[in-house]
Structure formats: C-alpha cells, structure tokens
C-alpha cells in the first residue's frame, strides 16, 4: 500500500514534467562562426568560359559567382574579403572586370553574387587565361568550413570551399567526335576533313546548328546523329565550291589554305 502511494506520486510527477516545449535547435553563430564560401565549390572549383563558339559580334560575357555565408542573416551589411591571387593570368580591367561596387553580404541576406565581366581579348585566341579567387576571413567571416576531401582510386585530394578558378579562352576546340583520339575520328575525318575552329564555326552557322548539342559528349552516337556528318561534309563542300565559283573563296585562318572538307565528299 505504501509503495502504491510512491508509485502514484511518481506517476503524477511524470505526467507534469513529461511534456515540455522544446526550442528549435538553430545554428549557433557564436560557437560555430560564420564561414564564407563558394557554393559552386561544393561540386567544382573551376568555372570556364570559351568564346570559341560565339559569333564574332560577341565581345564580352558576364559570369555570376555566388558567395554564401553560413549562419543567420544579420541586420547590417557584412563586407567580405575577396582576394585575387597574384598567380592569376587575367589582367584586371583588360581581360576581366568585377562589376560589383562593393563586396558585401547585405543585411538580412546570407548570400551575394559577384558579377565578373570577361572580355574577348586577342590573347584568348592563343591560350586560356586564369583568374584565381579566394575568400579570406575578416571581422565578419571565418574559414572554418575550408576543405572537402575526395578519394578517387585511392588518391586523396583536398578541395577548398573558398577557392575558385575562372578561366576564359577564345578557342573553339574540336567536338569530341572530331578529336584525333576519338574512336570515331576516321569516320569524321573522311567527311569533314581536318579540324579547324573556323571550319567548325562556319559549319555551325551555315546549318544553324546548336553548338552546345553538337559538342556534348554523346552527341555522335545519339539518335543516328553520325549519319549527319556525311550530309554536312557534302553540303559544306557544295557551299565552298559555290563560294569559289562566285569569287569568294573561303580560306582557313592562315588566309592561304583553301578550306576543304574530307576525302569522302570530294
């Protein structure tokens, strides 16, 4: 009987204290700090742009790079420190220009976007140029979330969340099926001949093709696309012949070599 009373008291005590409203666990700014990083770097540290496939009228492009801070928004603007590494080969105000007037995460926000204008300068025709961006700590932000580790076939690589490589060139490289190492190269070469950026550009423009589709990795083997190469070869050669007959002979970039499609269409 005595025990019953104790149990009953315990029971009621439990009833009274059992339900307690719990606060939602939120990120602790104080303890964990506000790290700043490039969200893109969660998958890749490289962002590249090629003017190679653009029409000649295109002289610049603007890339948008998002910067994000961990933690809660604040009720004041928080400038962050964006550093351009000295190893960058892009020249400021020549090859690129950062369009933002200030680099700051606005009050009430947790992200900012940097607009980087890339200019189509002549130097891009020879080789790509690079811009290395790094987000460094300052009074508002830390670099606590710094790296991620990726193990590929036993090789351990560390990727920085606060670093980003931007590259730019004006080289229209061959699409995968026109690369010499491609298993389809001999097929392609037979119809289209030797690759040149100018030839590829003319082909794209003349037949109004979507370059992003043609250069995509599996284009050649998709939906019988490889059949189209013979059409392009013949069609381009017919056009080159027409241009020549009309005294508008089309030459390769050197201005001397007559443009010519593959042996299979001659």
């Amino acid at each position, binding site marked *: 009987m005595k025990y019953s009373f104790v149990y009953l008291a315990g029971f009621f005590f*439990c009833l009274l204290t059992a339900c307690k409203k719990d606060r939602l666990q939120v990120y602790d700014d104080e303890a964990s700090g506000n790290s700043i990083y490039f969200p893109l770097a969660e998958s890749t540290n490289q962002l590249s742009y090629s003017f190679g496939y653009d029409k000649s009228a295109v002289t610049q492009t603007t890339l948008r790079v998002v910067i994000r801070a961990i933690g809660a928004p604040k009720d004041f603007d928080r400038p962050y420190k964006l550093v351009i590494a000295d190893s960058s080969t892009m020249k400021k105000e020549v090859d690129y220009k950062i369009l933002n007037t200030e680099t700051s995460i606005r009050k009430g926000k947790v992200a900012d976007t940097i607009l980087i204008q890339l200019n189509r300068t002549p130097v891009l025709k020879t080789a790509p140029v690079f811009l290395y961006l790094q987000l460094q700590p300052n009074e508002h932000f830390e670099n606590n979330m710094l790296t991620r580790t990726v193990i590929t076939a036993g090789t351990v690589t560390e990727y920085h969340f606060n670093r980003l490589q931007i590259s730019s060139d004006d080289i229209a490289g061959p699409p995968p099926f026109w690369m010499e190492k491609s298993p389809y190269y001999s097929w392609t070469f037979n119809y289209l001949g030797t690759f040149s950026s100018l030839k590829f550009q003319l082909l794209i423009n003349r037949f*109004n093709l979507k370059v992003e589709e043609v250069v995509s990795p599996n284009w050649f083997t998709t939906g019988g696309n490889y059949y189209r190469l013979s059409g392009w070869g013949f069609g381009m050669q*017919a056009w080159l012949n027409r241009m020549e007959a009309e005294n508008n002979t089309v030459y390769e970039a050197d201005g001397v070599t007559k443009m010519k499609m593959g042996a299979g269409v001659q």
Partner: protein
Amino acid sequence: MQNKLSGHCGIICLLLLLVTACSKDLGNYDYKEINQCTINGISDEYTVLRGGNLDITPELQFSQDKNFDRNNYSFKWQVANDNQLVLSDKPELHEIITLPSQTEAYTVYFMVTEKSTGVLWRSKFRIRVSTNISDGWLVLSEANSKARLDYLNYLSDNEPYQLYKDIFTQQSGPKLEGKPLFVNFYYRIDAFSNVRGKTVVVGTDKDTYIVNTQTNTFTSYINLADAMSVYYPPPYHAESVKPLYASRSYMYDNLGQLTYEYPTVGTAYGRVVNRTITGEKINISPIYAEGIQSSLYVLMYDVVNRRFMEHKEGNEVSSVPALAPSPLPPKFDPGNMGMDLMYMCATNAVTLQTYALLKHSSGKVYLARIQCDGTVFNPLAFDEITTYAPMIAQATQFAIEHSQGYLIYLVGSKIYRYNPYDNTNEMVIDMGSRTVSLIKFQRLLYNFQNPRYLDETSKLVVASYDPASPDNSGTLDLYTVPALNAPVVKYRSYNGFGKIVDVSYREN
C-alpha cells in the same frame, strides 16, 4: 510475492512510457480558415487567329471576400512556353494574341494571388493560335508573264475555300522570277539542319524555293542551292520535285539529272541516280513515276534505249527492272520496249499499280500496268488501247483517278475518261472555247485517312483559261468522278487565277 513484482514491473513500464510519450512536436495545430477562390467562366480551349482579339472574363468567387476588392489581389495570364510570356496582369483578358501559330495549342495559366497572404489560385486552359492558313490548294499560275502562287484556304465544311492571291507577296515569301514550272507539298526535314516543316516547294525556270510553312507563314524559305550536296553553277533549277511519304523525295533538275533527298541519313539533293553502274548517264524522260510507299523507289524511262529503269532505296545507281521468274511469258520486256513514253504515274488505285502509256511508231498507244516497288517488278497488262480510245494518241495531258483507276486524258479542250477494266471510253467534260492548262488528281501523302482530305483530293482538277485574257481568266474547277463510269459532276469552281501551271494540296 511473484504477483507483486510483476505488478511493480507493469507500473514501471507504464511510467517509462509516460516519460517518453511526449517528444518534441513543432507542428502548428492552430488551424484557421483561409480565403478560397473559385475561378469559373474559362473554357478549356480557345481558338484565335494570330493578331486577333481574345476576350475572357472569368468569374471569381472568394469565400472571405464576398465584395471582391480587386486591389487585394494580383492577376497574371501567363503562357507556359519557353519565355513564360505574360499576356496580361488584369482580372480580365482583352488582348491581341501575337503568339506564333503552331500545330499544338499553348497552355495558359490564369493566376490570382492574394497580396496579403501570397496564396495563389490558378486555372489552366489552352489557346490554339492559327493564322487562318490551314489546309488547302496551292495554285501556281502565270499572270502578266510572271509566276504567281495563290492559295485556296480551307475554312469550314460548308464554305468555299478562301482565296489568298499572290500569297508570297502578301506574306513576305520568296520573290518568284521566271516562268512557273511546278508546286508541291511535303513534310520535309532539312538534311543539314534537321529542321522539320510542312514545306511548299515552288519551281520556275530560274529558281527553286523551299518554303517552310510549319508555323502557317510563308516567310521562312531557302533556295535549292542551300539544300544541295553538290554545287552546280547557274543556271540551275529543279524541273520537278516529287515527294514520297516520310520526308523522302526525288528532284529532277534542268541538267536532266534525277537526284533524291533522304534527310534521316543525311543525304541532300545531288546524288544522281539516273546512271548505270559503270557511271554512264541515262537520258531519262522528265516523266517519272515516284513510288507510293515510304522507301525510295522511282520508275524512269530511258528515252535513248527506250526501256524502263528503276532506282531503289539503298542503291546509288539505276538498272533495268528484273522480272520475277514465271512459267508464263512476260507481258512485256521492260528492258526493250521499243516505243516512246507518253505518260507514267503510280496510283493508289487497284492494288497500287503504276500506269505507263507508250506510243508505237505506228501511232498506236499501249497502256502498261505494272506492279512495282522496291522488291518486285511485275507487268500486269500491256494493252493496245487505241482501239477503244482512238483520240488518246493526240492527248497532251493525263491523270489517273485514285480509286477506280480511270485514265483521264485531255485532247484539245475535251476531257475523256478511259476505263482500262472494261475498255469504256467517253468524253466527260467539254471546256468549249477555254484552253485547258492542267488536269490532275492530287495524291495525299500524309492525311490519307482523313475523310475530308480524301474527299477533296478525290476530285478531278481542271484548270483552264480564256485565251483572249490569259492573265486573269484562270479557273480551277473540281469535278466529282464517280465509280462505275457514272457521269462526272462539277463540285466547286474557283476563279481569279492566271494561266494555271500546277496545283498541289497543303496538308495540315
């Protein structure tokens, strides 16, 4: 004792359950009715002419806003296409629709957003935009020494077709130079760009234009040279383009070459098929019979050696048709006909036969009926028909009726019907003083199961003009040609043309 212990255990378990029973629950169970909107008065689909007005007045009912203050809401009429075009931001739609016309209807959302809560209601419907350009007759004529394309546009079952005179000038199409030769229609795929389209091809003795009318406009066109895989210096043009089903077609050029387009394997016009395996050019008649089926097949006539030649899909050259072995002697030897070709055409009639009319040096005319395609060449009949149809030797134009297989032919301004299955021959239309410039049966390529199309194209087309005023007296008459040799009856008549050279039917 045992009982007491188990009793204690029970109570302890109960307590444990009580302690853990309530875990964190962040849900909000403080329910509150929100405003609800019912959108009525919007049909599922609207059809509008491009450039025409569309008026929709939806009825909106709000559960908590009986008096409907429109300032409390924002509205949006948005098209679900690539650029998410907003037609209007008003509660009612009264707009001119400038969306390009296309076969598929546009999906449009009418959205109502309550400004205070952001709650959104929407209603979905479709807008079908047409240019009014539908299926209809393409009419190529010569007027004032110029080529002109007119278009007879289908409107509805009970109305006559609407005439668009000089549609290329009217709708910024190509400018036709030279004398008109032919017009044709097909669902073309460009061998280079893979662009598909309902295509009108128009030829003159100077130019050939390939016009993509997919969006029911005539502004998108290319010159034949841009569709070629070989360059031929000018003057170069097509004498005829004959489409087959499934985007393949043959093109006969002014150099006497027959070439084909087979876009799905990347082959553009330019591969000459009237060659022998040793590469010699075969001089063929400009009259050739393209196959009925989808694969490439054409029956040609070698005018030098006076023999049939055929080209089949997969071959780059042509050859004399080979006869299947048979115990009976063949009706004729395709490799040695010894006559001149007058006319040849493949027809849907009577088990897909190809008719060929040949004239012997004696003046007698023979009708060869052949079953031929990519797999077989079977001479079914070879009959001297001058006995029944004595005037046929003087005929200048021919047409084969699709269902009964009548051979219709023109002598002067009189039109005759010869029935090869009972040898009856009869003059069916006398155009009197008018000059007949064309007789034709249109062959449908795609919509051959659509009764309306079938009915329209079952008619005999007779184009004529008054020789005293050839530039504006052109008439297009359609005649019903019934079965069982019943009398021919005029169905419809259209005028306002020049001297009609060719017609075709644009299938939509």
